[in-house]
């Protein structure tokens, strides 16, 4: 289509050229929070600033961090998956049992990831078929999957004998960098590119921004919703398999707080609950923030009875700071959503 010439120029109709402003990236809040926390903790307890202990935080962040990567895609498509922690546990249990039964550990690991993706697919199919919000579907399946891993694992710790190469996951590279941490960093960067530079990522954000408009523009919204849940399941399965490699065993209750941790990390990292955008790198940084808070508890010797409460309070604080930064940014750009929950 070429240009059109219709309206005659009228008095006073010169355009005000809109000014370009530099926009802060979505991860700003998380980066600032991490820097402040590390500085504060280093000041309170200088031993924390040693590279080894900093990198161990990275190692701790790896497993829930993988879940956070998956949850970013789910949140960006305006859904939520609270069954991720349970999927993690069931995938780990299945992989461990296969190893106990004598399957090749790598094959068993692959089966664990596939089991995670399969559980995600069940979530996705339920969402499409029943037209139910993912929150309700995963609320139900969370319970089912949790129960299932108790049944399958018989409520006991499963420690597979020969782990072979998988055991390398518990080690370090270059002496101090945990292998799991490297996996997190590489996957976060790769998935960040997937979210922002591929057709799949584009569709995820489009569906999350306005599902009606997306459907109207011919974007296959159902497939995209299901695919994000499959991806979430696969990431949870992968995390579960790595968990076996690191710990050498899977115990009941191992995944306890993973799902809420992952969701909190994604939100701290700049992914809104209302969908439409997301930052995978931000979620990884958000998970580092959370793990720093958790290790601060032990490092500063907070009474174990109070640790859970203090952690929760700090997470609320982190969310509040992030929210305030966001409001400030919106005031600068002059556009804000009507949605009060955005």
């Amino acid at each position, binding site marked *: *289509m*070429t*240009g*059109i010439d*219709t*309206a*005659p120029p*009228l*008095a*006073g*109709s*010169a*355009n*005000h050229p*809109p*000014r*370009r*402003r530099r926009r802060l990236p979505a991860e700003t809040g998380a980066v600032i929070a991490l820097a402040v926390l590390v500085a504060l903790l280093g000041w309170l307890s200088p031993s924390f600033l040693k590279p080894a202990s900093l990198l161990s935080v990275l190692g701790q962040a790896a497993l829930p961090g993988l879940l956070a990567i998956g949850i970013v895609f789910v949140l960006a498509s305006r859904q939520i998956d609270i069954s991720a922690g349970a999927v993690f546990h069931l995938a780990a249990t299945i992989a461990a049992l296969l190893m106990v039964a004598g399957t090749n550990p790598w094959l068993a690991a692959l089966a664990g990831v596939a089991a995670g993706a399969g559980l995600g697919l069940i979530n996705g199919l339920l969402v499409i078929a029943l037209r139910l919000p993912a929150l309700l579907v995963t609320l139900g399946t969370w319970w089912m999957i949790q129960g299932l891993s108790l049944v399958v694992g018989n409520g006991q710790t499963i420690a597979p004998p020969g782990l072979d190469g998988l055991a390398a996951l518990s080690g370090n590279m270059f002496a101090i960098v945990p292998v799991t941490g490297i996996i997190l960093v590489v996957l976060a960067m790769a998935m960040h590119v997937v979210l*922002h*530079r*591929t*057709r*799949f*990522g*584009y*569709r995820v*954000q*489009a569906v999350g*921004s*306005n599902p*009606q*408009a*997306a*459907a*109207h*523009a*011919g*974007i*296959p919204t159902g497939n995209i919703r299901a695919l994000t849940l499959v991806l979430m399941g696969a990431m949870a399965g992968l995390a579960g398999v790595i968990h076996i490699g690191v710990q050498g065993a899977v115990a009941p209750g191992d995944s306890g707080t993973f799902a809420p941790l992952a969701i909190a990390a994604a939100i701290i990292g700049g992914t809104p609950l209302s969908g*439409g*955008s997301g930052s995978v790198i931000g979620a990884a940084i958000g998970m580092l923030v959370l793990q720093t808070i958790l290790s601060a508890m032990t490092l500063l010797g907070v009474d174990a009875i109070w640790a859970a409460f203090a952690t929760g309070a700090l997470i609320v604080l982190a969310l509040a700071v992030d929210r305030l930064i966001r409001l400030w940014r919106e005031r*600068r*750009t*002059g*556009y804000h*959503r*009507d949605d009060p929950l*955005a």
Partner: protein
Amino acid sequence: MSDSPILSLRNTAKRFGGTVALEDLNLVIERGSIHAVVGESGAGKSTLARMLAGIVRPDGGIIEFDGKPVTIDSPQAARKLGVGVVLQHPGLFMERPVLANLFINREPLHNGLVSRHEMEARSRDLLRQLGIAIDVHAPLHDLAPGERQLVMIARALLGNPRLLILDDPNSALDQRQVERLVAVLRGLRARGMSMLYASNRLEDTLAIADQLTVIRNGRDVLSKARQDLTASEEAMIGQLRQSLFPLPLRALPTLGGALRPQISVTGLGGGTLSGVSFTARTGEIVGLAGRAGSGIRELFATLFGQRRPREGKVRFPDGDGVPRNRTEAARRNICMISGERGHGLMPDKSIAFNLANVVVGARDWGSRWYSPGLAVDRAARQIEALRIRSTPQMPAGSLSAGGQQKVIIAKWLEIGPQVVLLDEPARGIDIGSKQEIYALIRQMAASGCVVLLHSNELSELTGLCDRILAFHQGRLAGEIAGEDMDIGMLATLIASGQPTDEGLRGKRESAA
């Protein structure tokens, strides 16, 4: 102080980021008068209304209400002053019943409980005056868009405001409803209420206004009493109206009619539709006229793959039948542009992102990657071609209503559509953008699309279309073309399903 104006604005300014919405705006509304604010989309009408409603805060300037300087920093403050507002994007609660919407936040209490009885009693008269015959206990989403808009107006009136702000109150109303509304507003003016009336429909505005202010790019360029308007000033305002419908472009005169690809519909039925048959060729604009319930919506939904037809056959220019879903429709270059708000836009995403909706989002061929750089180039091109006043990086929600609609059209133009289904594509937007959109529709036809246009504004159909199909209760009632295209005749056809001479005369008078 009783002779001071009810509201006066001096040097009011408002910026959104880098975009200037209002700049040095002055406005004086006299007591007991209707003050119309006219201007193109993006001129600042809605910002003005939202500012007086306490939703946006001005960056500078003085607001005097009732002779005293005031700050309206919240909707509560506006309500306290006695400012009632009817906004373009209403805060309506679709799942709640009509009554709950009418009395939101001022529910009458009886022994500490909300009194439904009193709500009914207090709203009954007003609803009758406005001519809404609805079940007040039905949820709002059961109502037609026009009825919803009237509910919104009724809600503002129930607060007994001293100053009523109406931002484009008649965009979803039909002619009869507009007449009712105008009668009610005149009655209120007689009882001393003052009103600010911002609208895109110039004729209605001129008919009702006592005073008139033209704003352009956030400044007031003319402010006068209605009867003092000189002919040249009226002509200046009228520029908005003139040449609304561009001359037809004929691009394919040499091709034989039979050879041109066409869409043919044979005996289509389903929903309210039954036995609909017609053909439309590339290069022509075929109008579809009909009231609510005439089946045009179903016809469009069927052609766009949203509904399965119960019977009948459709053959598209590419040789296939109806698409199975919207994704298939988009991939086969069948596009649907609707005036329904919220159906086409991702307001929080950038214009560049929105323009990639179909090219990247719907298609599954081409690159698997999404390149933001390419998207920005694409957006820059369309912004230039369609005169959208913004930059590719701005969120689409920051555009005016007309600009938003242009973005929706532009994203479909990107794929080079074969069949274009237009469902009131210019509803609720200003005259300037309307003109540009009409020119675009002409251009689509000239460049070889099959264009089907549905509109409730009959003048839009007669002005733009080569021929018009009239629908009545799911059936094709008749077809008019060429010299016969006349609003009165069309109105009769869609109202009764038959062209009778008697009805024709009557309708002509009322349409004039």
